[in-house]
């Protein structure tokens, strides 16, 4: 009745009977989150920080085994930082900049990501997913201890959902049997195979692409000095597959991903002797221990709509992409970042329900961008026709000799944050400023002495002023906007000017609680900015 679907790495929230289970009438909760994975916990952190009572129901009792997602991008870490758990991730994670590309057995070129200076977080860290989830859960417990109204119940599986206009009724299975609760809002963060999506009969479609990866985490024995680099092989003759990726994780663990096609005998492939045969052919005479292995399959799909009345979907439950480019967990975190403040404002009666539809607009935009990029990578790595193969091989052959062909090599376009161009929440760009900070963009970080700009943005609406005057705060129909005054005269790195002023002499930015730009202008104009606040909260088109 209650079999675990996977093995736990850490048991964090053992089943405990809740008073809800003995209540005479179903207890109603403001928000219920279905799923205690990285996206579900992040949702609880976002809402918990706003003081919104949030109940997470998970059918397991902790963090699943296996490294799974390993590549966490800057924006994802910045979101985690806003929730108060980015720093331990950065400390534990492995930062890498050098990549090497091989075709068959030959190295064709290497590259350096040449990270941009002046950000608190690097472009990427490699970190095993269980660590990532643990740091989020540490923060979850810390917030609980500080009185945040968030709760997680282990071995609580939602078996039935009944959707009403203003609430949902949930039937929850536990080791002590079933009970019923109600939720004003339900957020499905229950993964790619989302039981919630199935129960409600929502579609999950798109450009279907099927492939599988044999993933092996290994720990090198002895004094093996493998560099901290990303190595990617196209058609390795020694790996028997379309591609192989070798990547370093913390604890001297290396991730090897073999792309092995769709029709594989899982059981046979997962036998240790068969995994070792692949690894040995690949690594030569290196001694290693096997830490974890798995076969991972994926499809590129998304739901038609991420919002259905009182029910939202986030993360893999809403959209799934190929692993090329690290766009899974990273885009799920951006979903949460986007939804949290909107739901908070609507629940507080400070914004209309229409604001929640913008979650759908903005995150579908994000999902489509991710699916497009990951589909293109997939098509480059596993060409679908003879001509496509010929062109791909020609690009690789040229890239060994000429620099121009290297940007065409697509082994995964690494996840960059989504800019919500065309969002109904954006006001028209009124500043002759840098393109990267146009309305809809996530704010890029800038060093401010010992601190960073992003730590001063987020959670509320902020009016960032650079070398121009404005009131310290103003309120527009229940929304408080606080000013953050900065000057390009006190900008030793010149990055504030470079990233926020460009050619402009001064600037005013209206920044949303998720650190995205809603509007910008050269100076404070009360009428325009009040309209921008209304627009950014779904009150004006």
């Amino acid at each position, binding site marked *: 009745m209650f079999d675990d679907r996977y093995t736990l790495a850490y048991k964090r929230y053992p089943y405990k009977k809740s008073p809800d289970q003995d209540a005479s009438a179903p207890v109603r909760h403001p928000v219920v989150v279905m799923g205690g994975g990285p996206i579900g916990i992040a949702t609880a952190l976002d809402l918990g920080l706003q003081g919104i009572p949030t109940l997470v129901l998970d059918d397991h009792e902790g963090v699943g085994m296996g490294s799974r997602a390993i590549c966490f991008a800057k924006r994802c870490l910045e979101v985690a930082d806003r929730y108060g758990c980015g720093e331990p991730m950065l400390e534990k994670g492995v930062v890498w900049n050098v990549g090497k590309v091989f075709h068959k057995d030959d190295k064709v070129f290497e590259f350096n990501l040449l990270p941009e200076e002046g950000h608190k977080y690097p472009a990427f860290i490699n970190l095993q997913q269980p660590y990532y989830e643990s740091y989020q859960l540490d923060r979850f417990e810390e917030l609980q201890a500080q009185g945040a109204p968030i709760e997680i119940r282990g071995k609580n599986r939602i078996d039935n959902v009944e959707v009403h206009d203003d609430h949902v009724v949930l039937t929850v299975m536990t080791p002590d049997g079933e009970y019923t609760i109600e939720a004003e809002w339900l957020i499905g963060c229950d993964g790619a195979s989302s039981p919630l999506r199935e129960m409600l009969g929502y579609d999950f479609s798109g450009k279907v692409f099927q492939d599988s990866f044999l993933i092996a985490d290994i720990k090198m024995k002895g004094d093996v000095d493998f560099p901290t680099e990303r190595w990617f092989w196209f058609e390795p003759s020694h790996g028997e597959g379309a591609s192989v990726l070798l990547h370093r994780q913390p604890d001297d663990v290396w991730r090897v991903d073999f792309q092995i096609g769709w029709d594989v005998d899982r059981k046979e492939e997962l036998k240790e002797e068969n995994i070792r045969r692949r690894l040995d052919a690949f690594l030569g005479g290196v001694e290693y221990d096997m830490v974890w292995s798995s076969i991972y399959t994926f499809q590129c799909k998304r739901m038609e709509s991420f919002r259905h009345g009182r029910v939202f979907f986030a993360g893999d439950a809403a959209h799934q992409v190929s692993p090329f480019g690290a766009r899974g967990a990273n885009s799920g975190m951006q979903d949460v970042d986007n939804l949290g403040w909107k739901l908070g404002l609507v629940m507080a009666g400070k914004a209309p329900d229409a604001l929640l539809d913008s979650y759908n607009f903005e995150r579908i935009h994000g999902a489509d961008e991710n699916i497009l990029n990951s589909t293109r990578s997939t098509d480059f790595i596993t060409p679908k026709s003879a001509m496509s193969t010929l*062109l791909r*091989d020609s690009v690789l052959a040229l890239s060994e000799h000429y620099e121009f062909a290297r940007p065409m090599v697509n082994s995964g376009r690494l996840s960059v944050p989504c800019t919500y161009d065309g969002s109904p929440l954006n006001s028209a760009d009124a500043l002759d400023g840098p393109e990267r900070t146009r309305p809809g963009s996530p704010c890029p970080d800038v060093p401010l002495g010992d601190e960073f700009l992003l730590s001063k943005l987020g959670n509320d609406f902020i009016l960032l002023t650079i070398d121009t005057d404005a009131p310290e705060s103003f309120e527009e129909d229940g929304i408080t906007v606080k000013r953050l005054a900065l000057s390009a005269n006190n900008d030793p790195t010149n990055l504030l000017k470079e990233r926020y002023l460009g050619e402009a002499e001064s600037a005013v930015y209206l920044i949303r609680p998720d650190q995205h730009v809603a509007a910008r202008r050269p100076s404070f104009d009360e009428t325009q900015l009040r309209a921008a606040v209304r627009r950014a909260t779904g009150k004006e088109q």
Partner: protein
Amino acid sequence: MSDLILNPNINGVDDFYAELVATHEGLSDEESQALNARLLLVMANHIGDRAILSQALSAAALKSKE
């Protein structure tokens, strides 16, 4: 924005044509195909202009401009 040049534009076109054919001499069909693909990519990079490249793709597909 400039348009794809579809009027004669190569000086000594007979020379060029001969050189093109000569470059393929002695190659297998497969090698020739690969050479053509590399040549295409080299020239596309030299052109660079996205709009021109799109026009060139349409022209090569013998799609007439509307």
